[in-house]
């Protein structure tokens, strides 16, 4: 069974962390992953940096630009990760934008992920219909779970369609926003979380965007299976470096 599915069966709320590979320093990728696992994080999204991250706010944009300037490349990321499964056992997901994957070759990219032991892929700008028509067979062949996003504006009909096409979890974007831009959740979010919970979807939901501390983590996981922290973690890396990752995780979990 895919590590993501296994993890989702655990009887707990899941904490997932996103970081941009190659940031703060080019070779921080593996140390960050190890630190996160050591401190009890349940799942990790490894961001493949892109020059034009449309769905990201200033924090992740800046980390992507810095990572590319540091020399991060697709092949180098795979190289850094090649022995990761010797020491790390939690689910690992590669998150990025579709153009770098397309240039690498979708099949070659998936094969590489499979060899490394990557469990899933999140490509926000690879649309559902294109995925189903052209790429689903390849993802499946290499045992990769493709994760789709929904937002407060996604229609019920489309949510059901996405639920049908998903085989792991649904990435529930907390509000109409790019990453890292909202502080705290209002009634609109709570209503949305409850509305989705009532739909009885077959895939569990994990909330992302705008989760920055224990309070928002708590609020998001009231109904959802877990939550993803990105920008707040990157900010922490920028301010305190990778040595204090344990403090960050502890604060979220407290």
């Amino acid at each position: 069974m895919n590590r993501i599915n296994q993890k989702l069966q655990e009887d707990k709320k899941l904490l997932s962390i996103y970081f941009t590979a190659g940031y703060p320093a080019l070779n921080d990728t593996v140390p960050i992953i190890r630190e996160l696992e050591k401190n009890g994080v349940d799942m990790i999204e490894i961001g493949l940096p892109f020059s034009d991250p449309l769905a990201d706010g200033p924090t992740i944009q800046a980390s992507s630009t810095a990572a590319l300037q540091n020399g991060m490349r697709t092949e180098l990321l795979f190289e850094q990760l090649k022995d990761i499964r010797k020491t790390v056992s939690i689910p690992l997901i590669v998150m990025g934008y579709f153009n770098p994957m397309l240039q690498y070759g979708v099949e070659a990219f998936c094969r590489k992920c499979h060899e490394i032991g990557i469990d899933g892929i999140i490509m926000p700008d690879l649309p559902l219909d294109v995925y189903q028509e052209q790429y689903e067979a390849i993802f499946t062949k290499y045992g990769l779970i493709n994760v789709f996003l929904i937002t407060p504006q996604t229609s019920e009909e489309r949510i059901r369609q996405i639920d049908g096409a998903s085989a792991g979890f649904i990435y529930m974007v907390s509000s109409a926003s790019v990453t890292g831009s909202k502080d705290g959740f209002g009634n609109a979010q709570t209503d949305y979380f409850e509305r989705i919970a009532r739909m009885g979807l077959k895939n569990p939901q994990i909330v992302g965007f705008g989760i920055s501390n224990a309070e928002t983590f708590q609020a998001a996981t009231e109904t959802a299976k877990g939550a993803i922290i990105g920008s707040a973690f990157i900010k922490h890396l920028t301010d305190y470096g990778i040595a204090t990752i344990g403090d960050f995780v502890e604060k979220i979990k407290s």
Partner: protein
Amino acid sequence: MKRKKRTTTISGETERKSYHADEKGNYGEFGGAYIPEMLYPNTEELRQNYLRIMADPSFQREFDHLLKDYVGRPTPLYFAERLSQKYGTKIYLKREDLCHTGAHKVNNTIGQILMAKKLGKNRIIAETGAGQHGVATATVCALMGIECVVYMGEIDIARQAPNVARMKMLGAKVRPALSGSRTLKDATNEAIRDWINNPVDTHYIIGSVVGPHPYPDMVARFQSVISEEIKWQLKEKEGRENPDYVVACVGGGSNAAGAYFHYLDVPEVGIIAVEAAGKGIDTGESAATSALGKVGIIHGSKTLLMQTQDGQITEPYSISAGLDYPGVGPMHAHLFKSGRGEFISITDDEAMTAGLEVSQLEGIIPAIETSHAFAIFDYKQFKEDDVVVINLSGRGDKDLQTYIDYFKL
């Protein structure tokens, strides 16, 4: 005169029936909507409604009325006698430079502001490079009394100060794009992010035939008034609707799409697209996407774009801010790949020289974007009785400082 060789046409499939978008927004292998799910409701709303709204008689009436009385259409099709003499062929100029605000861009913004109203939107966002599209958007927003935010790269804000002032005077907010290379591509990213943050009340007026479906097709349709007029105007002047060639500069490709539109599926009309070679195709400072681009995804569309081997989008360069875009619209990628269009790239120096020549032969100072289209005669030999229509996409007022600096006027 010595003819140089820098055409990059390649031959390809010939059996294709139409060069227009299909119902999914595909132009051959290009186009589509590669957008994050956050934008799906926005583009879907537009996709489901744009053709219906455009076919609505009340929409058409208002569009036609504004194009006539506000923009000043039809724009003349002018026989350029001295230019024709010099190059030994019959050259007509489609005078989009005479549109209100000084370029073709306003045809699209008029159409889209009416579309936004029909969709019940009360806030407009746009991106701009040179500021022409920003000004055209700010203009129609003022006309309709709708809030307007224009994203513009920090670097472009500095080098296009007069257009920034125009937008402000028209009541628009100009927000600097501070990310990436701080030019047009990044302004587009910022506008898209704004749309993600404001999905319900906001309409995004894209300035060219780029972006996710249905934008390329919708913008092309709004600009198609250019070739619609050329057809009857040429009939009056030459007794035939079809020129032998229609020539336009291509940044994203909207003036070109409008000039080609009704000729796309008329094989006897030659299509010539002129791109900016910047300092030269091989210098690393160029915007000639057909020569330097590979298939990829930019701003939600599959098209040709300039990128690294890893798929990171690279910065283009051209003296003309309006051609300084690392991609082209999917229609143009398909015209190139299929061989239907002939693509020629023109350097800064060649464009500037041609701009000066047109000024002095015809008394028309073209926008530097358009000057590129006038520089093709070094590369392309026309027959004496060929009818060549050049789309004069805009006037050079906005570029005066660049011309002054270049020619030390």
